[in-house]
């Protein structure tokens, strides 16, 4: 491959990697803010959201230029398509981090009920999401399709926790007296939904990355 084209391809990968690191940090910070109800950290997440969006615009433009100028085919074309999709997934995950942060910033709740956190397995869900993000980033950096495959099973636990959380939050709503409980529970339910969607987007990224490396389309198929 011509040297200057190789450099531009590497630059795109580097930018996606940087965006990945930023989005992972956003989810980490949003989770910390959520579990400790720290409005200061939540504000930081909201402020940094525009950086995620800027990355998306920059990378999309770089990919558009690359396709227009160098007509990539085969593995290079798959690389560009998967980077484009992964960038969109990362941007959505960034949005979810901001949503969680906004909940923390705007809620009247001073702290999360520890018993509720325990029952809903919120911490476990957050840990699983972060583990998936980190595994996916390693797979991405090392171009490791085998590691990307391990993402699919990890998403099942997230789906499971989210499904159970609905009943637990509904019970909690019914058995608590303050008027604000219902609203808070609905907002919390939305947080669970966002975490679950984050898991879905990481799964999408794994599919897209495997498509790039192995030319296998895994979308809408059983992964087992």
């Amino acid at each position, binding site marked *: *491959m*011509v040297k200057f*084209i190789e450099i531009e391809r590497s630059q795109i990968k580097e930018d996606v990697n940087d965006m990945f690191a930023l989005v992972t940090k956003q989810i980490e910070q949003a989770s910390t803010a959520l579990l400790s109800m720290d409005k200061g950290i939540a504000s930081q997440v909201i402020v940094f959201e525009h950086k995620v969006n800027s990355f998306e615009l920059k990378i999309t433009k770089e990919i558009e230029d690359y396709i227009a100028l160098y*007509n*990539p*085919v*085969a*593995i*290079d*074309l*798959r690389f560009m398509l998967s980077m484009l999709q992964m960038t969109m997934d990362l941007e959505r995950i960034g949005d979810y981090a901001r949503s969680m942060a906004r909940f923390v910033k705007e809620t009247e709740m001073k702290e999360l009920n520890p018993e509720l956190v325990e029952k809903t397995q919120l911490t476990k869900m957050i840990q699983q999401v972060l583990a998936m993000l980190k595994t996916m980033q390693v797979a991405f950096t090392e171009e490791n399709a085998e590691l990307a495959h391990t993402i699919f099973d990890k998403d099942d636990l997230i789906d499971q926790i989210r499904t159970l959380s609905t009943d637990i939050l509904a019970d909690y709503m019914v058995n608590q007296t303050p008027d604000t409980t219902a609203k808070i529970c609905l907002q919390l339910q939305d947080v669970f939904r966002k975490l679950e969607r984050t898991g879905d987007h990481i799964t999408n990224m794994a599919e897209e990355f495997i498509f790039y490396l192995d*030319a296998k389309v895994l979308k809408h198929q059983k992964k087992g």
Partner: protein
Amino acid sequence: MNKIEVKNVDFFYGDFQALKNISLDIEANKVVAFIGPSGCGKSTFIRIFNRMNDLIPETRLMGSVKIDGIDIYQKGIDVDELRKNVGMVFQRPNPFPKSIFDNVAYGLRVNGLKDKYFIREKVEESLRGAALWEEVKDKLKESAFALSGGQQQRLCIARALAISPSILLMDEPASALDPISTAKIEELIWELKKTYTIVIVTHNMQQAARVSDKTAYFYLGEMIEYDDTKVIFTHPKKESTQNYITGRFG
């Protein structure tokens, strides 16, 4: 039945083996592109379909090449008849120093046709087939050299079509043309495949991707991979093919 069937073909220039054990089938009314770095054997291979290599001393072919089920290398084959059936267009337009009309009529006259009305009809039909008629219908008596490079190439295609072949061989037909003329040739190939089977050699990867139904990749006299063009340009099976089409070597 396939239009062209090649089985275990080896081809030699003296002691040098230019093609090694090539086998492939080409369906009728398809466009097949041959790609590969210079010296890989693709031009040698395209020239076996009309036995153009016979003109080079000390060459020999082993294996079989069938067109419409007939082995074109068997004894008794009329090579002139074969070349009427298998037209060829070259890299550089090579019109004769004659008028536009006479260039297209040349093959018909050489083949003994004298009916002026028929020849006029056939010339118009061929020029229309080569998407050139509208541009030259009012200047048929003018020299072919007055045409642009792209028009000259389409004139050569019209000349090939006039003798009613069923196969068209194109050896880098657009490599000497500007982008607009290239686009016209590519559009023409797309139209012509409704009637003809087309084999094209090209160094332009994007051209192969745009115009062909199937692509064969050659390297050092071997056919490394032959598959649907979409497969070759999205997920080729061989690493060597991928390296070539992505510009990593060749």
